[in-house]
């Protein structure tokens, strides 16, 4: 075959033409990337060089094998194929480029090696098929939050041209040298087709050269276009994944929040460049799905636009991201982390939003209802605006069976949480739990009025100072008590106590009541007298499930008391938030355009054949779903039950 780069075109040697194209492409690409890097360099530092092994492993599973993408299987596999063809063609491209730029190099072109040519043909075909699937999905069965943008179309076409030009090249090679057919089955087919259509073997070399240049030029064009496109994620995602948070629950340390670009961390800004605009976050987001202002994909896109705009503007540092992202959007998040759980490039929407909330709060800007709640949390230590002394009222009918852990030592310190203590709709469940403990002979005590809200949601609405105040007050209360373990029925308190407080009482473990009950049933301290024998479904609370991975304990409990558990389509890490978290339950809940998250969730449960009950293990869920059953008119089909109430029924002789 003629060597494409030693051949002269209109007097210009091929390799010189290639140099020209390459330099042009690299300059455009490099200039753009440098701009991005400069902005990132000015952002708040957030070093993430720890746990290199774990980080590398994550790149293997999440980039090379794209674990997260595979939970939407069809497009997941298609994307994996496109990705692998991309890897192969990128490698062969650079090989070919090197050879082309320095024709004296004593190596061949990659596809001169038979096996490589075969692999390239194979992945070109697979890649094209996958592109077909992606195109049909995007243009025919467009899923929610996926756009038919010009950018996406351009990219699909460019990739197709790269693959098709290679296959065509292969065809012309076989046309010229039929002996190459052995390694080029597709080329063989094409060459036969060409012959049948009347082509002669003589045209082979010329067309081969044409295709070679088309292939190389398209890739170089692609490279130059890449940093201007959403497909920057091709390059950015390995870095995004490598530098992702190893503990997505983590909120940035106490900061003054962020509103302007340099106040965000570099990884927060990088999320905009890494985003693939796949819309998976939107499809999981309860705020977006219920028609509230927040759209997590759009949020990340705003970050990207801010980065790009600040590159252009003279006032780069003053560029206010908060403002482009409205405060309505910032307040709409339930911090359920469903978006983060699904994002293939491990973007961190919640920390980003919490940073913006911090900036708003520090400015005194927060929704008026929330403001009232914050004031009462500061003054009374609870979100209900009630007297601290009223906190233990729920147990006044229990004849003082529960101890005061400040007076006598206990095994379990029961941190009740606001809703379980003060809300009349939840109190019956709280009492049921107390009676279970009594039956099991557990040595349990309370902090009574010294307990304050644990502050989980206070942190998440961005009132970091108030969170610290609550922590101080609770720590003082913990210090005055003697206990071995801490238990709570409230996943929000659970999360805060477990991860955001300094170690309690040295190293007391923090347990969720489902974990305690599970243990009691397992050890026989609690015996089941009446099997439940009902079909129920179970809702995973965000702060127990996604945030803490406690999926098994509640399911075990249900199993042990004889309930037949039917899972909702969205369960465990894909569970759909009830809408209460992140302080949303403290804000106004005005009518939404579509349906409230809790309403969508009870409808989901109502679809399950034969299921009459949603079991919950979070006080806020109880409140939210009871309300949703009323507003959806499903209360005659479904009931909501806190797991402790079911257990009490089962263990009472």
């Amino acid at each position: 075959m003629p060597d494409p780069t030693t051949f002269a075109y209109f007097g210009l040697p091929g390799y010189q033409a290639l140099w020209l194209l390459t330099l042009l492409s690299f300059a455009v690409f490099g200039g753009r990337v440098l701009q991005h890097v400069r902005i990132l360099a000015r952002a708040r530092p957030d070093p993430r060089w720890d746990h290199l092994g774990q980080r590398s492993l994550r790149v293997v599973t999440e980039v090379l094998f794209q674990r997260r993408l595979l939970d939407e299987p069809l497009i997941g596999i298609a994307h994996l194929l496109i990705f692998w063809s991309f890897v192969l063609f990128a490698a062969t491209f650079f090989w070919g480029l090197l050879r082309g730029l320095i024709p004296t190099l004593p190596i061949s072109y990659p596809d001169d090696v038979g096996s490589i040519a075969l692999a390239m043909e194979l992945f070109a075909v697979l890649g094209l098929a996958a592109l077909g699937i992606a195109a049909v999905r995007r243009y025919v069965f467009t899923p929610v939050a996926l756009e038919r943008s010009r950018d996406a179309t351009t990219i699909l076409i460019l990739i197709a041209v790269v693959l098709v030009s290679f296959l065509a090249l292969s065809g012309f090679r076989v046309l010229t040298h039929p002996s190459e057919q052995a390694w080029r089955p597709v080329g063989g087919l094409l060459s036969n087709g060409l012959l049948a259509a009347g082509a002669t073997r003589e045209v082979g070399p010329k067309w081969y050269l044409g295709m070679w240049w088309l292939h190389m030029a398209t890739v170089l064009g692609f490279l130059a276009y890449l940093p201007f496109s959403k497909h920057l994620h091709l390059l950015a995602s390995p870095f995004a994944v490598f530098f992702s948070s190893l503990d997505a629950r983590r909120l940035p340390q106490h900061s003054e929040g962020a509103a302007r670009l340099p106040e965000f961390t570099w990884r927060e800004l990088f999320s905009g460049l890494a985003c693939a605009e796949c819309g998976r976050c939107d499809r999981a987001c309860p705020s977006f799905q219920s028609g509230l202002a927040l759209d997590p994909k759009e949020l990340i896109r705003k970050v990207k636009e801010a980065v790009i705009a600040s590159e252009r503007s003279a006032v780069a540092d003053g560029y206010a991201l908060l403002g482009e992202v409205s405060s309505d959007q910032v307040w709409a998040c339930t911090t359920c982390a469903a978006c983060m759980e699904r994002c293939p490039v491990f973007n961190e929407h919640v920390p980003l939003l919490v940073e913006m909330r911090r900036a708003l709060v520090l400015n005194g800007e927060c929704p008026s209802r929330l403001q009232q709640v914050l004031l009462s949390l500061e003054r009374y230590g609870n979100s209900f605006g009630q007297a601290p002394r009223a906190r233990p009222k729920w147990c006044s009918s229990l004849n003082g069976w529960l101890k005061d852990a400040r007076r006598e030592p206990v095994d379990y310190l029961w941190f009740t949480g606001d809703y379980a203590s003060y809300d009349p709709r939840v109190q019956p469940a709280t009492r049921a739990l107390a009676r279970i403990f009594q039956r099991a002979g557990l040595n349990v005590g309370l902090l009574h009025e010294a307990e304050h809200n644990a502050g989980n949601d206070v942190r998440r609405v961005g009132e970091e100072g108030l969170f610290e105040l609550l922590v101080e007050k609770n720590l003082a209360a913990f210090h005055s008590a003697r206990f071995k373990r801490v238990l709570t029925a409230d996943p929000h308190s659970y999360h805060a106590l477990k991860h955001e407080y300094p170690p309690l009482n040295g190293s007391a473990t923090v347990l969720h009541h489902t974990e305690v009950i599970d243990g009691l049933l397992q050890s026989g301290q609690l015996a089941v007298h009446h099997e439940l024998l009902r079909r129920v479904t179970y809702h995973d609370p965000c702060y127990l499930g996604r945030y803490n991975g406690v999926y098994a304990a509640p399911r075990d409990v249900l199993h042990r008391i004889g309930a037949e558990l039917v899972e909702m389509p969205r369960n465990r890490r894909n569970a759909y938030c009830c809408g209460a978290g992140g302080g949303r339950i403290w804000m106004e809940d005005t009518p939404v355009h579509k349906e409230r998250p809790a309403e969508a969730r009870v409808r989901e449960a109502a679809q399950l054949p034969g299921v009459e009950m949603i079991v919950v293990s979070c006080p806020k869920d109880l409140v939210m779903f009871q309300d949703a059953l009323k507003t959806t008119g499903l209360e005659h089909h479904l009931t909501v039950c806190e797991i402790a109430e079911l257990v009490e029924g089962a263990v009472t002789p």
Partner: protein
Amino acid sequence: MSGNIWVVAALCRGRLLDATYEAVALGRELAENLGTKLEVLLLGHELKDVLGTLGIADAVLCVEHAALADPVPEVHAHVVARLAGTRHPQAILVPQTNVTWELGSLVAGELGVPYVNSCTELRMVEQTLEAHTVLYGGKVEAIVRTKHAPSIFGLVSGVRAVEKGYADHAPATERITEVDVQPTSVQLRRYLEPEAGDIDISKEEVLVGVGRGIETRDNLEVSKELADVLGGAICGSRPVIDQGWLPLSRQVGKSGATVKPKLYIAAGISGAPEHVEGMKGSGLIIAINSDPQAPIFQVAHYGIVAKLLDVLPALTEAIRSRSRRGMKQYA
């Protein structure tokens, strides 16, 4: 012989406010108690129209002067204080409306005599006037006594039924036009009418709140009739608003308005914390619910366990027939 009892009338743009009649009713009792006369002090300009309903009093002292046309507190207070200085009333009762808010304190300050705020009850005990007042947002009732004459008493709204202080005739009237007007640096510029649109439930004095116990949209009519006879408006819990039976502006609670009417009737409302948050500050709360365990009964002052379709119409009817018996053309 003790001095007379005075009531300072509360006038807003030439109309007597209900609180005046309430004060007149209480003043009447006190005057009987003391064996003296009840006089209403009417301050303003061109006051003819309002005299005809003050017949419960023994006399009206009608102080007319151009400078009294507008409700400038310091000007009015000075006139009252001067008159009191020459006529020696035993007690001056001032209804605590927004129009007359500053009066009691100012008059007492000028005369150097005692003032008692937020009185709900006044009577003569052992030769001294005993006042019941409410403190701490109604959480505590206190009893104070004063021997001083005159003493000034601010009255909370609703001390007596309006109808008891209302008559369809005028009492003897004494016109006073020679008054000592104090120069002032406060000038009324204009009145601003409330904005049009749906009513603002947070400003209503009587609200009938309906919850899911109302069951159908048509049943709203029943609660509306009740609200009408009480001169109030209807509002609802969130599910009722969600259904579109009432506009969002009528929603009470966390996601709606916070209301503090004098009377809140909660009909078929369970009393979820999100709702209670918006109405617990109401003066008098009456709950009607078919479930004796409904939490609303923990915040209500009076409760009725019944179906609301039975109670609401009966209540409307009872109120109608009473007002027919009471004042006929009270407008």
